[in-house]
């Protein structure tokens, strides 16, 4: 007997344990996920659900439960994110539900996932409604809220009908079947769906303004559903009873609210009492009785964790109402302190979602109250406005925060507030306003570590204004840059400011000011080499401006530039830096082309630079070699070395090539006998080098290069080639007077009668196309006389000279007059043919 009883106890024990084990998985999952979501550990919750779902041996019930929890995890995670980051989470939530429903359509437990999917739509709608209350453009958010809540409502209604049908079917066929829900489970789910449906209707009502027919209609439907659910007693549906009270409050049915509230309070367990107190607090606030609401919430015992966030949010509403009621004065400051502490509490305890709602609420209060001067609150409100896209309100709040900080002598806070406001304006590319803000900020706090950075942003915005064509801001831009350099000469941005200032002045062709700015860039600055090159360009521009106007000033300028570049190059010992190498080349260039003297010194400097420079900047090497060739040619010595250097020239730019050829042509013009042929040979060589042929095609100066080549052939005494080159040129460019003149000169310097005859005809053409009395016209008359003299027609030559002198006594200037006189004398002394010039 005893053994039989023991056996029965053992069987009972095993049975109880087995049932507990079999029925416990879902509850444990839900509780576990709840705990993770409360702590906002969304990744862990997601990983847990996905890991469990990946196991192939799950029953459909547990699979449905885990899927629903995964959907809830995605939705909860989305709620905590900023509005522009939520899309992926919403998509995942719906995708998970859709995947499950696709593979388990028609099964009972699919209803669990359907319910969860509809709930996600409801949450989305609710969230959009919350955010529409403080948005700049609430219409779009209200439309989203309406659309999501409508979908949720339709889904819940469909699910409600499906569940009712299944409940009927389950009643007809009682008994547990694998994969199907029991009648009790169906009933629980059905009730939940009805509750959610009533909640959807309540949320849809709140999407409409108070007093509108749409709101009244939705509220009435929600009230009816909640009242029906509130009548249930097994078990009591407390969420629906809370919902019922909320509907009474929103519908302003105060008597019904009071009566029902008292009744429910008497019956409610302690876990529900807090929710009822919360509803009463809402009711007090609706009655503008913030004191009662505040006392109720502040002094009530500890609330359940699930309600804590909403409790604190409603308390914040009461505190703000109390603050607003006090206006100004010590009492208002006390309320402000309470609000500040409470905001910190919400931030510490309730996560980003509730913090954003709280800040939005605070922002609305601050926007409507001009007397708020608490720095922390103003900053919070400014951030809330910025996130909501209310930029003007955000800027206003930041400005007020700055003033509040200044009043309390908190420079750091004032700076940060002003910087944030300026950064917003800068981000929105409002350059004029941004410049003003940054400039004012940096000058107001010149000793702040970030003052230089703020001032630099003012400079940047001013530059953007210039770039957009607001030319009137040019002088202000230069002043701003100069101010930046003056105030923070050693700062990180000082070098860049000097560079920009130099570029500005160079663009205005204010060469001296540009050079002053560039010269201040220290040698250790990464822009030093560029600055040296820029200074060289300034000298070129300046010298070009003064050419033929003021030779003395031009010479002085060239000497000044040489001294400057020598100083840079000379200060480098051993291996030359990029800047020093550039300086050496530019100093040589000024000597050779600007001054037209000190050729030996230029050659020495270039040789030293070529030996010392390890990593020359691009285009530096061919340029340095070309200058050295010129220096040797100008000295009239070391022709072999010059030829060798030319053969090493590679990668020369078109600009450098043209400059070199022009310089050699000028040198050729200056030389009458010594070195003339050698210079011409150099010029021909540089034009024929393979590596420079590409550069010849660039820059649209092929004509001038061809003319230089023809002149070089003539100077090198290759008459036939020169004549052929000129014939081709005059045929192509018949209108070019200079070309015609050069060709006629070549013919006149021939050795045969046919040349002189041809020269005479050419000079007649030149004369005909030249304005009478112009320098070319006088040269043409002189050359005609000379041609006649060489052809033996001395009397005609004399007549030409005499008549020209009679009609144009100045004879084109002292130099031409002398030439005419000398030719006349020769003609009168020796009337026979004379080939001397």
């Amino acid at each position, binding site marked *: 007997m005893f053994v039989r009883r023991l056996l029965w106890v053992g069987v009972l024990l095993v049975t109880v344990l087995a049932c507990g084990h079999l029925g416990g998985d879902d509850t444990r999952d839900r509780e576990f996920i709840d705990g993770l979501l409360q702590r906002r550990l969304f990744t862990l919750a997601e990983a847990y659900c996905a890991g469990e779902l990946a196991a192939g041996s799950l029953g459909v019930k547990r699979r449905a439960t885990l899927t629903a929890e995964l959907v809830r995890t995605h939705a909860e995670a989305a709620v905590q994110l900023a509005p522009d980051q939520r899309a992926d989470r919403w998509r995942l939530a719906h995708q998970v539900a859709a995947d499950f429903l696709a593979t388990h359509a028609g099964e009972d437990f699919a209803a669990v996932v359907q319910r969860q999917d509809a709930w996600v739509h409801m949450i989305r709608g609710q969230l959009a409604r919350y955010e529409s209350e403080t948005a700049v453009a609430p219409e779009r958010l209200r439309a989203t809220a309406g659309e999501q809540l409508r979908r949720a409502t339709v889904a819940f209604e469909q699910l409600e009908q499906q569940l009712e049908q299944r409940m009927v079917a389950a009643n007809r066929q009682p008994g547990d079947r694998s994969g199907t829900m029991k009648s009790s489970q169906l009933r629980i789910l059905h009730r939940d769906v009805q509750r959610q449906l009533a909640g959807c209707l309540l949320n849809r009502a709140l999407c409409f303004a108070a007093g509108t027919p749409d709101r009244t209609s939705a509220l009435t439907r929600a009230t009816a559903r909640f009242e029906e659910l509130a009548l249930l007693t097994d078990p009591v549906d407390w969420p629906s009873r809370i919902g019922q009270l909320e509907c009474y409050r929103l519908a302003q049915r105060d008597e019904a609210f009071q009566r029902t509230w008292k009744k429910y309070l008497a019956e409610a367990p302690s876990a529900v009492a807090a929710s009822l107190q919360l509803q009463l607090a809402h009711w007090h606030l609706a009655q503008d009785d913030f004191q009662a609401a505040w006392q109720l919430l502040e002094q009530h015992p500890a609330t359940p964790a699930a309600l804590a966030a909403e409790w604190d949010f409603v308390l914040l509403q009461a505190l703000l109402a109390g603050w607003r009621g006090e206006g100004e004065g010590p009492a208002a400051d006390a309320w402000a302190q309470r609000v500040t502490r409470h905001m910190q509490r919400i931030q510490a305890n309730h996560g980003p979602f509730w913090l954003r709602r709280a800040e939005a609420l605070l922002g609305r209060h601050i926007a409507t109250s001009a007397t708020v001067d608490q720095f922390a609150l103003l900053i919070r409100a400014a951030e809330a406005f910025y996130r909501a896209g209310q930029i003007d309100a955000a800027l206003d709040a930041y400005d007020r925060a700055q003033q509040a900080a200044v009043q309390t002598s908190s420079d750091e806070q004032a700076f940060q507030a002003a910087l944030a406001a300026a950064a917003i304006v800068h981000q929105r590319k409002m350059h004029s306003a941004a410049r003003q803000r940054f400039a004012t900020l940096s000058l107001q706090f010149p000793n702040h570590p970030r003052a230089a950075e703020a001032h630099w942003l003012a400079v940047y915005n001013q530059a953007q204004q210039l770039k957009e064509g607001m030319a009137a801001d040019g002088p202000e831009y230069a002043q701003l840059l100069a101010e930046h350099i003056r105030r923070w000469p050693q700062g990180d941005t000082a070098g860049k400011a000097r560079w920009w200032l130099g570029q500005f002045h160079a663009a205005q062709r204010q060469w001296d000011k540009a050079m002053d700015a560039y010269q201040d860039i220290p040698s250790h600055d990464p822009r030093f080499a560029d600055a040296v090159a820029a200074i060289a360009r300034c000298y070129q521009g300046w010298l070009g401006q003064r050419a033929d106007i003021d030779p003395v000033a031009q010479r002085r300028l060239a000497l000044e530039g040489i001294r400057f570049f020598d100083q840079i190059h000379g200060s480098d010992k051993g291996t030359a830096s990029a800047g020093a190498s550039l300086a050496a080349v530019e100093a040589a260039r000024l000597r050779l082309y600007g001054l037209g003297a000190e050729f030996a010194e230029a050659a020495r400097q270039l040789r030293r630079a070529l030996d010392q420079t390890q990593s020359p900047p691009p285009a530096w090497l061919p340029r340095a070699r070309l200058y050295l060739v010129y220096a040797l040619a100008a000295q009239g010595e070391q022709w072999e070395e010059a030829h060798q250097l030319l053969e090493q020239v590679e990668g020369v730019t078109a600009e450098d090539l043209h400059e070199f050829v022009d310089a050699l042509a000028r040198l050729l013009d200056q030389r009458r006998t010594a070195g003339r042929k050698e210079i011409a040979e150099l010029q021909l060589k540089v034009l024929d080098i393979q590596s420079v042929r590409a550069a010849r095609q660039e820059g649209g100066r092929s004509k001038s290069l061809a003319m230089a080549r023809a002149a070089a052939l003539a100077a090198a005494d290759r008459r036939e080639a020169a004549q052929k080159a000129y014939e081709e040129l005059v045929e192509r460019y018949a209108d070019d007077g200079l070309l015609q003149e050069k060709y006629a000169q070549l013919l006149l310097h021939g050795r045969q009668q046919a040349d002189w005859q041809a020269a005479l005809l050419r000079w007649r053409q030149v004369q005909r196309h030249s304005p009478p009395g112009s320098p070319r016209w006088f040269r043409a008359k002189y050359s005609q006389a000379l041609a*006649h003299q060489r052809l033996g027609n001395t009397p005609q030559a004399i*007549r030409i000279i005499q*008549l020209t002198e009679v009609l144009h006594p100045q004879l084109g200037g002292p130099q031409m007059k002398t030439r005419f006189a000398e030719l006349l004398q020769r003609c009168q002394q020796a009337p026979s043919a004379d080939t001397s010039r």
Partner: protein
Amino acid sequence: MTPMIDVVFLLLVFFLCTASFQIHEQVLPSSLQIAGGTADRPEDVPQQLVDLEHVIVKIFWQEGRPSWEVNRTPKASLAEVADVLAAAAAVQVDIPVIVDPAAAVPVGYVIEVYDLSRALGFAKIQFAASPDTPQT
């Protein structure tokens, strides 16, 4: 008695033998020179004149007084113009002289220059006209 018809014929013969025309009118140039141009084609110009510049005398009229320019060189008086013309004539007397008066210049001053040129021996004296003036 001598018949009247005889007397008439006698008088007619007498007048025919004694009549003479003004030479200057025969040799007055009738072709007009376009200002800045040349009436002669290049192949018609004698060889010694090809490279010799024409003398161009411009006459202006300002504030009731004339002013002169010879080959773009201003001259203060007709005497200076005469000096230049004389020097040019000494070099080559058969180079063309072109007289280019402004529209407001009285004809008398134009004839002065013309007479001066003739007196110095220039034979080819032409008057300039604008390109729009049709040539006669």
